[in-house]
């Protein structure tokens, strides 16, 4: 599996050569577009980071975690990973830091550690993805898209804990 991406890169170049495409020119043309893309994404990133960091620095996230731990415990999510499940939609680097903490505190191969692993692997940074995807479009109202994605993330966390119990 670790060969898949390198081979793909080589394959694209080789096919380009065989089909007599101007590979170098095409690559540069495509790469050029990335600059504009990043410029349009940047202000949205700044907004998201301010929100996430303020939440974390004020201790509000820890408070909300404490509040939500009992209902999550009812459906089998250990309180240690509730914070991870809650922060995950907002911040990729933040949740990775929490994951590392969980590993160090409970052990990588413990039940809690494995739960946290699967939650991390099977969920997405919903708000981050939303802000990046809709940057540069006119979209203001996202309708059901974000609620559905958040619901699936929570469902994924519950499924993760159940699956780790039986596997």
């Amino acid at each position, binding site marked *: 599996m670790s060969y898949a991406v390198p081979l*793909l890169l080589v394959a694209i170049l080789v096919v380009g050569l065989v089909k007599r495409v101007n590979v170098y020119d095409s690559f540069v043309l495509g790469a050029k577009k990335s600059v504009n893309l*990043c410029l349009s*994404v940047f202000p949205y990133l700044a907004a998201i980071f301010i929100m996430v960091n303020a939440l974390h620095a004020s201790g509000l996230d820890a408070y909300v975690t404490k509040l939500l731990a009992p209902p999550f415990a009812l459906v089998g999510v250990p309180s240690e990973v509730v914070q991870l499940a809650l922060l995950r939609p907002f911040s990729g680097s933040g949740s990775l830091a929490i994951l590392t903490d969980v590993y160090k505190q409970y052990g990588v191969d413990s039940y809690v550690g494995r739960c946290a692993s699967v939650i991390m692997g099977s969920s*997405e940074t919903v708000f981050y993805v939303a802000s990046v995807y809709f940057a540069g479009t006119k979209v203001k109202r996202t309708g059901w898209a974000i609620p559905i994605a958040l619901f699936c993330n929570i469902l994924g966390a519950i499924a993760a804990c159940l699956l780790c119990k039986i596997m």
Partner: protein
Amino acid sequence: MNILWTIITATALAALTFVDPQGVLGVCLDSCSQAVTTALSLCGIYCLWMGMFEVADRCRLVQGLAKCLSKLNKFLYGKIDKVAEQYISLNFASNLLGVGNAATPSAIAAIKQTEHAETLSRTGAMLFVVNATGVQLLPTTVIGLRASLGSVNPSDIILPNLIATVITSIVGVALVFCAYGRAK
């Protein structure tokens, strides 16, 4: 997003002012510099993949990929324009390969093709949900972190992870069908 962001940020900043008034400006400024470094590193990743995708596109490889995925695309998105379909196929393939960062530019390009109004269309919602429920097969970052912290079997989470991902993807797609109806 407008209301949500404002309420959460205002509440958090107010709480922070109460706890640590000197830290407020620092947190805000740090966040913005963090956005600069993140945007720059994303720029590098997008640069590689967008360059490669352009080459693949000129070789008509992307059209081939779109043809392979046309049944699935038709079921999920219905009738959409050719260019958007190609970007969506590229996005799906990147997700399957586990290069999530390559999936982002193609998703953005697809959304630029399909969204012209202020309200997100069914196609855009479906594409977003498919990406946000993670069709990723191998959680490479998590496995790497587990290995580096001395796990006995870092990859024993692959199976439960795969099952959880498949469950969330199916439920996500089903909910889009419930909310927006069948693809036209």
